[in-house]
C-alpha cells in the first residue's frame, strides 16, 4: 500500500513536471505575441554600434580560419568590428593558424583583427573571455565559438535591435544543423531548435534566462557592472544569464531562422557525453552557487531552480520508464492506479510527437527535406538518447560530488560545413 501511494504521488509529480517541460517546448507556437516578437527586424538601421568579437579557441586548428573569414566578411563596416582570437599561450598550433589567416586577410586591407594569448590559469573559456574583454574597446562585446558559422547580417540585426528597442543584451539563435549525421544528431539538433526557438522566449518574458554560450551580445557597461564571467563555472553562459536576470537586465532573444548561427553536433558519442556532462555539471554548480536567490520574485526563482536542476530530473525521468513498466505489470493494484502510473509515458509520447513536428518545422525553415522514415528512426533512438542524457547527468552529479571540476572540451571537425559542400 505504501509503495502504491508513493508510486502514485511520484507518477503525478513526474507528469506535472513533464507537462511543464512540454509546454515550454511549444511556448512560442502557443503565444502569437512571443512568436511575432522573436523575429528579426525586416529593415536595418544604418551601422552605428561598434562590436568586439571574442573568438575563444583552444586546439581549433581545423576550423579557426574559416570562422575568422566569416567574421571578417560579415556585411558590416570593417572599422566597426574588432576581432580578438583568444588563445592560451601554449596552444601554438591554433595561434599559428590564426596568425596566418590574419596575414592573409590583411593583404590590401587594414582589419582590426588580432590574436591575444593568456598565460595564467585557469585554462578555460570564461578565463579567456575575461582576458579578451579586458583588451576590447568597442561598444558591444560578443562571443563566437571557433566552429560557428555566423550569418553575414548578424551585426546589422543586433545594431538595429539595440538601437530601436534600447536593449543592452541580445541573445541570437544558435542552431545545430547536421540532423542526419549520427544516430543522436537528430534529437540533439531538435533540442537546440526548441531551446532557442521556444523556451528561451519564455525565459526572457519571465525575466529569468540562462544565456547561450555564443552569439550573445552585451553592451560593455553591462559586462563591466557584472564583473565579467565566472571562471570557476563550467557553464559560464548560464551563470551570467542568472546574474543578469538578478539585476533585472532585460534580455532580448532573437530567433529568426534566417539569421541563426550554425553549429555542428559533437562528432562522437564520447564527445557528446563529455559536452553534456559539462553542461549538466555547470547547471548544478550554478544551482548551488545560488545567485538565483537574488532574483526579484518567486516565479523567477522557481524557474531558475527548475532549469538548473533539470539534469537531475532528467536522470530520474529516464530511469523511471522501465520502473513504471515494471510496476504496472507486477504490482497488483486497481486499474485506476495502473492508469495513473501510465501518465508519464503519455507525456513521453507527447514529447516525442512534438519533436517529430519540430523536425519538420526546422527542416522547412532551412529548406531541408528529411525522409518520412526519419520519424521512425527518431522513435527507435528516442529512449536511448534520453538514457545517454541521463547517463551524462548522473556522471555530472558524480563528478560534482567528487569535486572534479575540470573542463572536458568538445572537439570540432566542421561537420556542418562538410555537409553544405556536398
Amino acid at each position, binding site marked *: 500500500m505504501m509503495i502504491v501511494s508513493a508510486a502514485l504521488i511520484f507518477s503525478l509529480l513526474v507528469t506535472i513536471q513533464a507537462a511543464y517541460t512540454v509546454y515550454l517546448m*511549444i511556448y512560442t507556437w502557443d503565444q*502569437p505575441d512571443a512568436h511575432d516578437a522573436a523575429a528579426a527586424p525586416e529593415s536595418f538601421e544604418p551601422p552605428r554600434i561598434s562590436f568586439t568579437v571574442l573568438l575563444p579557441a583552444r586546439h581549433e586548428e581545423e576550423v579557426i580560419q574559416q570562422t575568422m573569414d566569416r567574421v571578417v566578411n560579415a556585411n558590416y563596416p570593417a572599422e566597426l568590428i574588432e576581432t580578438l582570437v583568444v588563445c592560451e599561450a601554449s596552444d601554438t598550433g591554433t595561434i599559428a593558424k590564426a596568425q596566418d589567416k590574419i596575414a592573409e586577410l590583411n593583404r590590401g586591407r587594414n582589419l582590426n583583427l588580432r590574436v591575444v594569448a593568456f598565460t595564467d590559469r585557469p585554462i578555460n573559456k570564461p578565463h579567456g573571455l575575461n582576458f579578451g574583454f579586458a583588451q576590447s574597446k568597442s561598444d558591444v562585446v560578443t562571443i563566437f565559438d571557433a566552429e560557428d558559422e555566423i550569418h553575414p547580417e548578424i551585426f546589422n540585426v543586433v545594431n538595429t535591435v539595440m538601437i530601436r528597442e534600447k536593449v543592452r543584451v541580445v541573445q541570437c539563435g544558435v542552431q545545430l544543423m547536421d540532423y542526419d549525421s549520427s544516430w543522436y544528431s537528430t534529437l540533439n539538433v531538435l533540442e537546440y531548435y526548441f531551446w532557442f526557438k521556444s523556451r528561451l522566449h519564455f525565459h526572457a518574458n519571465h525575466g529569468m534566462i540562462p544565456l547561450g554560450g555564443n552569439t550573445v551580445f552585451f553592451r560593455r557597461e553591462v559586462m563591466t557592472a557584472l564583473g565579467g564571467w565566472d571562471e570557476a563555472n563550467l557553464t559560464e553562459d548560464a551563470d551570467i544569464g542568472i546574474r543578469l536576470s538578478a539585476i533585472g537586465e532585460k534580455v532580448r532573444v532573437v530567433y529568426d531562422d534566417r539569421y541563426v548561427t550554425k553549429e555542428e553536433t559533437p562528432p562522437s558519442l564520447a564527445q557528446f557525453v563529455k559536452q553534456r556532462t559539462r553542461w549538466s555539471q555547470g547547471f548544478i554548480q550554478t544551482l548551488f552557487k545560488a545567485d538565483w536567490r537574488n532574483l526579484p520574485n518567486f516565479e523567477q526563482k522557481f524557474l531558475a531552480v527548475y532549469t538548473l536542476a533539470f539534469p537531475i530530473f532528467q536522470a530520474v525521468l529516464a530511469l523511471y520508464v522501465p520502473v513504471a513498466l515494471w510496476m504496472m505489470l507486477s504490482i497488483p493494484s486497481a*486499474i485506476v492506479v*495502473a*492508469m495513473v502510473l501510465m501518465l508519464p509515458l503519455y507525456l513521453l509520447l*507527447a514529447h516525442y510527437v512534438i519533436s*517529430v*513536428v519540430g523536425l519538420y518545422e526546422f527542416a522547412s525553415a532551412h529548406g531541408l527535406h528529411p525522409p518520412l522514415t526519419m520519424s521512425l528512426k527518431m522513435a527507435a533512438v528516442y529512449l536511448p538518447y534520453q538514457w545517454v542524457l541521463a547517463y551524462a547527468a548522473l556522471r555530472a552529479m558524480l563528478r560534482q560530488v567528487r569535486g572534479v571540476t575540470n573542463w572536458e572540451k568538445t572537439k570540432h571537425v566542421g561537420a556542418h560545413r562538410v555537409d553544405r559542400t556536398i
Partner: protein
Amino acid sequence: MSESRQTSATMATNARTFGERARAWAEEYGLTLVVLVAFVSHFVNLFNYPLYLGDEGIYLEQAWAVLREGQLAPYSYFYDHAPAGWLLIAAWEFILPGHFDAFGMAMNSGRVFMVILDVLSTVLLYRVALRFTNSHYAAIATALVFNLSPLGIYYQRMVLLDNIMVFWMLLCLDLLLLPNRRLTSVLAAGFVFGVAILTKENALFFAPVVGYMLYHQVRDTYRARFSLVGFSVCTMMLVSLYPLYAILKGELLPSPTGAHVSMLSTLAWQMGRHGGSILDPSSQFWAFFWAKWWQKDPLIIVVGFVATLVNLLIGLGDRSRNRNFLVVSALSLFFILYLARGSVIIDFYVVPLLPLFALNVGLLLWWFAQRQPRGGAAMASLALVALLGGFVGLSHDEYFVNQTQLQFDQLEFIRQNIPPDAQVLIDDDLWVDLHEPSGNDPVYPYANSHWKIASDPAIQDRLLHNKWQNLDYLVMSNQLDYIFQLNNEQLAMDAYSHSRVMARFVEGDVSVEVRQVVKSSSSS
C-alpha cells in the same frame, strides 16, 4: 414639399436609431434571454414529462455503480459504451446534496443535470453562432430554435449520453473558434473532442468536418503543423485511455473460451448490427422517423433539413467566403449519414442533430437578412417568429402532461406490496430507486434488469438457474412485454405468461404494471 422631405429624413433617423438600439439590446441581453428560455422551456414540467425511459435508467444505474460500488456498471461491464458520460453523471450525483434522492425519484437528479447541461450547451451554441456570423441576432435565433423545438425539449430533458456528448462537441467547436490564435486552445479542443468520443462514440462522425475546419483555420499560419498534429494527438491520447483500460483488465482481446467480456468482440458485434438503411422504407430509421420525430415536430425536421441543404449550396457557391456555411452544413450532413447508413439506431440518436439544425437555421436566416438590405432583416425576423410560434403551437405535452406519476405510483406500490428479498424482474427506469437506500423505504437487491436476466450469465444462470419459476415479480414498464418478444427474452416471456396483474396504472396510451409470477406447484 420641404416638410414631407423633412419628415422622411426624421423617419430614416428614427429607423436607424431603432436598428442601432435593437442591435445594442441584442448585444447586451441576447445571451441572458436565451439562457432564460433554455432554462424555462426545459425545467417547467421536467419531473413529469416525458416518461422515464429505460435507457436513462441504464446510464443512471451505471453512475450509481461508480459511486456506490466503485465499478463502471452494476453488472459486468461489457464495453457497450465508453464510460465518460456516466462518470460525469456520477461526479454530479456526488456533489449534489442528497445525491440520487435530491429531487424525489432518482431519475430527477439526473434530469436536473441535463437541464444544466442544456443551458451550458445553449451558451456554447450562442457563442459558436456568434463567431460564425459575428451577429447576435443569428446567435439568438440559433439558440431559440435549439431550445423551443418540442423534439429537442423531449429528448434534451432525458438522461442521455447524447446530450452530454452534444455539450462536449459544442465546447470543442467553441474552443476552435476562439480568436486568440493560441495553440493551447486547439490542444484543449482536441482533448475535449476525445471526451466527446468517450462519452458517445458517434462523435467520431464529426471528425472529418472538425478536421476540415481546423485545417482551413491554421493552414497559412506558423502554427499549422503543431495545431493539426496536436489536435489529433490530444484526441487520440484521451481516447486511448479506453483500450488501455481494457488491456489492463485483460479484456481487450476475445477470450477463446468465452470466459470474459472483450472490448474488441463488442466492437465487432456493434459494427455488424443492421437496422436497415435509409433506402429501405421498412428500416428502423423510417420507423422512428414517422413514429417519433415527425409526429413530435415535423417543423424542425423540414426547416432544419432544408436549411442544411441551402447552406451547402451557399457554401459550395463561394467556398472561401462562405466556408462557415459549408462547415455547419457538413456537420449536419455527416450526422445524417450516420443515422441513415443502416446500422442499429434508437430514436434518441437524433439528439446531436438538433443543435446542428438550429445552427443551420440561424445561419441561413442571417444570410438572408444580409443579402436583402431592404427588409431582409425584417423578413428573417418574421420567419423566425413564425417558426418559433409553430414550435410553441406543437408543444403541449412537454409543458402540461404528467406521465411519470405512473412510475411514481408503481414504485410506491412495489414498496408497499413486494418483500425486499424477492426476485424481481424490472426495467431500468426504476433500478436506482429500488437499489439506493433512502429513508425507511425498502431496498431490493434482487431487482434485476430484464436485459441482464436475458443475457448476463451471472444473473440468468447463476442467480436464476435459467428457470422462470425463480422469478417472483415482474415490474412492467410501458410496452415491456413487446420488448421481450422483440429480443426473444425467453425467461421473461415464460414468467410473463405465468403471471397475474397485481396493479395497473394508466395515463392515455401509456400503461405500467406490477405482476406476480404464479408458480404451478406450491413447493417453494
